[in-house]
């Protein structure tokens, strides 16, 4: 068995996940050594899109027809497709209004008219899984070095990695932090995927949820709890939606509909 062939791709996003791969300064040469990197446009001019890949890492949300085309091409030639980063896994901040205010209206507010830009028809931003099968995910805005290396390690061994199922609070307790929620701060730890190492609470900053919603999030209780601490429903919903991605966006829209009608915009 030769070295696994990999490709690293970016759709629409801030490139933070690819950057954090480049940020593995001590391990970068090693990564290029254990894998045969066939395409990593952000780092190299050399690329070969003609060969099938063992693993494709894809960052970014699908936000134009062109993104979608590229995603489908990558999917087709890759055995394992890994969504990296919040945009690819959940849709990114750009998808926070999913299930709510019409996207085209907002688009027009920025660009003036629907067809102001003709280069590639825009799409409302969605995660990869909205269009293709995704074999593994590494969330985070951005992904972190340690979980990435862990994931790369297993992939290099031919094993598909699995993410933890628990929220930031667990890691926060491991860091022995005082709970910010108990101090009345808006911390999204309990409904957010772990993996970051509870960075923000460890800096006395409430988690803003950038690792996306945990699968079993009890956001109804989260809302009720924050309301009991004096935050308005509107403020809580806004905060929840920022990194809620398309899925929580839709859930929130339903929730708001049921409690007060209207939308999270």
């Amino acid at each position, binding site marked *: 068995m030769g070295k696994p062939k990999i490709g690293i791709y970016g759709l629409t996003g*801030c490139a933070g996940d*690819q950057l954090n791969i480049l*940020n593995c300064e*001590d391990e970068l040469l090693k990564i290029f050594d254990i894998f045969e990197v066939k395409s990593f446009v952000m*780092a190299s001019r050399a690329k070969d899109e003609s060969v099938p890949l063992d693993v494709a890492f894809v960052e970014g949300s699908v936000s134009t027809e062109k993104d979608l085309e590229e995603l489908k091409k990558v999917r087709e030639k890759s055995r394992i497709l890994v969504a990296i980063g919040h945009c690819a896994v959940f849709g990114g901040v*750009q998808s*926070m209004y999913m299930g709510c205010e019409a996207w085209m209206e907002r688009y027009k507010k920025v660009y003036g008219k629907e067809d102001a830009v003709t280069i590639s028809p825009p799409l409302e931003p969605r995660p990869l899984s909205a269009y293709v099968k995704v074999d593994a995910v590494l969330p985070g805005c951005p992904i972190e070095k340690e979980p990435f290396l862990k994931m790369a390690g297993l992939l290099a061994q031919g094993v598909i990695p699995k993410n933890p199922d628990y929220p930031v609070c667990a890691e926060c307790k491991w860091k022995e932090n005082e709970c910010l929620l108990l101090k009345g701060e808006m911390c999204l730890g309990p409904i957010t995927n772990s993996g970051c190492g509870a*960075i923000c609470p460890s800096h006395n*900053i409430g988690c803003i949820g950038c690792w996306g919603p945990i699968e079993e999030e009890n956001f109804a209780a989260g809302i009720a709890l924050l309301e009991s601490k004096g935050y308005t429903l509107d403020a809580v919903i806004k905060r929840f939606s*920022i990194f809620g991605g398309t899925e929580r966006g839709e859930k929130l829209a339903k929730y708001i509909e049921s409690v007060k009608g209207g939308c999270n915009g």
Partner: protein
Amino acid sequence: MDRKINVEPIARVEGHGGITVTIENNEVKEVRFDILEGPRLFEQLVIGKTPEESVSISSRICAICFLSHRLAEIRAQERALDIKIGKKLQLLRKLAHFGEMIESHSLHYYLLALPDYLGYPDAISMVKKFPQEVTGALELKKYGNKVMEIVAGRRVHGENLTVGGIGRIPTDEELDWIKKRAKELIIEIERGLAVWEKLDIPDYMEEEMTFASVWPEDGSYDFRADTIKISDGTELPGDEYKTLTNERVVPHSFAKRCRYKGRPYSVGAQARMLIMQDRLDGEALKWFKKYYNERWHKNPHYNNVAQAIELLFCLEHIPEIVDEIKKTPWEDAVEGRDSGKGTGIVEAPRGLLIHHTEVEDGRVKYADYVIPTTQNLDAAELYMRNAVENLIKQGAEDLELPLEMIVRAYDPCISCSVHLVKVIRK
């Protein structure tokens, strides 16, 4: 000869861009720098959010210069809300900002730009011939990252620096490490700078250019100010940034375009260095003098070396920033109002960055972001057209690499440029 050249995607830049050149009868019909990165509508995403949320969201515009975005937004919010911060916090922000410059410039200079001049597809392939330079680059990058991690919370999208405050102040041990390591690394960047001397800098695109950058009020070479200076001598108060930028939408790009007095202009390390050259000092000044010549005013390739000199400048100044932070006592910010307008102006590694915000009752009502790459697009197109015309005359076959090199010289951060577009108000 009819020819259509399409370079897409452009490698070793952040985001998705493409260059389309159409040549008919040996005449250049069109040179187009397309931005293919999808729209994310940031200026709409922040509407209705709190100032803090707006900072977290808008810093996601770009990963490489997230901190600049963050600092620009923080500054905009603080001006809108009339929040006054203490000196220690100012210095901490400055330190983090220097960290970002070091990280971004080392990434760009060594890993993204140098391979072109030396004839490699990427930096990893350079390891054999230039082991010291490549490992040195990684060390510098790691250091810049570490500074951001310590002061800003993490390498990318750290949340530690907030409107009017900071979550956790770095410990003395951390600060001491930052200082010590800065001194150790100076040798690395000087080694990198020495490579420039041996390079052939192409001239087929040259044309006199207008430059713009911040103009720090305290007379220092720095990356934050409330005033913009243009190379024609004009000084603009930050709030009047539109006099410079004049954004417009073009159909072939999700990024808007900027022109000053109807002409392209350029921002970035080269612009900063030309405008603030009298404020350089130390070794950085010596290297600038060594490499400076008339072509700096008309050739974008000098942006690369300007970045490397700036990197050295940052390393040289970090020790004194650290010393000052340590001796300055903490003061809480003075709260102002909950409605108002404000503009935050900073230098991102790749140039002038402007965040404008309007807040009403603690919620963002309007936002406008003008990104360095947006400002550089027209200049890049102009230089590419020159290059194509001259290269055709010289009968050159390979147009792709020269064009890509021009684009890369701008160190474009395409994902930012895209979302950062003017809101049309009815």
